[in-house]
């Protein structure tokens, strides 16, 4: 009797979960399908779900007409660069707060968190004007810099929570054995910190890749990453659904894969360790 009920429960919850999962995922699937249709079929009513003339020509057209690779490269440089620099600044800071905490450590951490709460639009005007006068508008370096600063608090927080979990006894044992701080860092701390570092890097890459306030406002063409590039399809003349879908599929594919690997860290990073 009990086993019957359990089996029934599994069947019901499986059907329910797959149904709603599919429903939520559907817009993405629909977009991917549209990217393999011709423009006419993408508009067609009634829509064809699978039995259409599959073509990859949209992908070729997107590259030819709008230099997709340039924008993809911009995205890689901006997301990758801002993540690397943020890590370089954050690692020493998080290490220091996790292993040599002082009375003020908690206040500093919370203050860092509060800088993330500042709405970007509140400082849009001065940043825009500063960028304009330094010739940083529509430059990769300008975007690297602003995304790095914007995500720095999250990076420090995530690293801090990971470093905190490294047992301090191990460090003390290493110190007793006469390890210097440099050796301690390289031989003891680094191997233990790599998983945390990797997931922090992953989450930050995702956030930077998808950032769409500064990239839209501070870049137009040369430095435009994929967010800005896709936005250019919003103009009526650019209403080519199949091509929009192809460009979008290419833009989200790498990050979707990265994101799926980092689900657990996502929760931790985005809630500043408040939910684990």
């Amino acid at each position, binding site marked *: 009797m009990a086993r019957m009920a*359990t089996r029934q*429960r*599994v069947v019901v*919850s*499986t059907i329910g*979960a*797959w149904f709603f999962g*599919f429903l*939520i*995922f559907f*817009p993405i699937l*629909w*977009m991917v399908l549209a990217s393999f249709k011709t423009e006419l079929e993408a508009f067609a*009513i009634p829509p064809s779900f699978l039995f259409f003339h599959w073509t990859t020509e949209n992908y070729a057209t997107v590259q030819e007409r709008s230099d997709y690779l340039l924008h993809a490269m911009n995205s890689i440089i901006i997301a990758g660069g801002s993540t690397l620099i943020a890590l370089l600044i954050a690692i020493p800071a998080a290490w*220091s707060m996790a292993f*040599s905490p002082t009375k003020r450590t*908690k206040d500093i951490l*919370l203050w*860092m*968190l509060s800088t993330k*709460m*500042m*709405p970007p*639009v*509140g*400082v*849009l*005007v*001065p*940043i*825009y*004007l*500063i960028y304009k006068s330094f010739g940083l508008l529509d430059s990769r370096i300008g975007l690297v810099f602003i995304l790095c*600063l914007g995500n*720095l608090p999250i990076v420090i927080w995530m690293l801090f929570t990971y470093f905190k979990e490294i047992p301090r006894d191990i460090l003390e044992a290493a110190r007793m054995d006469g390890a210097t*701080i440099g050796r301690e860092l390289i031989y003891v701390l680094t191997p233990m910190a790599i998983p945390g570092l990797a997931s922090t890097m992953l989450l930050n890459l*995702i956030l930077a890749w*998808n950032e*769409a*306030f500064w990239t*839209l*406002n501070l870049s137009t063409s040369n430095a435009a990453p*994929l*967010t800005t590039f*896709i*936005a250019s399809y*919003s103009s009526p003349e650019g209403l080519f659904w199949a091509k*929009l*879908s192809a460009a*979008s599929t290419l833009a*989200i594919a790498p990050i*979707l894969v990265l994101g799926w690997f980092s*689900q657990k860290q*996502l*929760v931790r990073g*985005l*809630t500043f*360790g*408040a*939910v684990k």
Partner: protein
Amino acid sequence: MATRQTQLLARTLLTPAVGLLFIWMIVPLALTIYFSTLHYSLLDPGSESFVGLENFRYFLTDPAFLASLQNTLVLVGSVLALTVLLGIPLALLLDQPVIGLNIVRLMVIAPFFVMPTVSALVWKNLLMHPVSGLFAWIASLFGLTPIDWFTDAPLLAVILIVSWQWLPFATLILLTAMQSLDEEQKEAAEMDGASAVSTFIYITLPHLARPITVVILIETIFLLTVFAEIYVTTGGGPGLSTTNIAFLIYSQALIQYDVGTASAGGLVAVVIANIVAFFLVRIVGRNLEA
């Protein structure tokens, strides 16, 4: 000796991060405050003059401000309600024994990784287009008149798009919290004859109180400044019907080039965000001590 050295080292390592964040916070903010007291238009350079609080009076009494404040509140409130109210049952469902759970979970969180410009344009065109969109086709199957989303219900359309993006976030956090709930506690309740409903109300829900608070606060901070979704779909219109505070400030700054008013508006946005941030920082801080 060694400890003093360590402390000095620790401080040195911390300084670049603190210094950068301090500059990042103070310089633009100070400039915003300064600009907000000026009559300053990029269309009319050289005419800057001190006007005191005139920009604030202008921004706060502008009918566009009230309209966009209202839109902001409706947008934030609706998305919060939708994501939390749908996220709880969805997380409950994913907490059940499900065959192929990993794949289902991947499908559920996928929207969160889609860049805002992509999700907004895909929804606007492929799904919500009044003639060729999928929703229009589904409506016609049932003999209904298709909704012209961005003409008749533009704010609702934006709300739906943003909710789709944030539902995975709420679900994932609530699911993580549910999984940390002690199974034994639930089993004990079941042994004592508690129904599934009362187990949920008396055990699961209280356990979820804090994660729900965290979801609400974090989402609020991001939702207060929804921008890209509006930028690529409606451009704030028709009229002001989808202009939120963030978009209003953007249009004053980079479309009308009115630096003074936009700065005053920016400060208003900072104040609103700070009220939310105050509560979030307190909750996170309490967690830090535990």
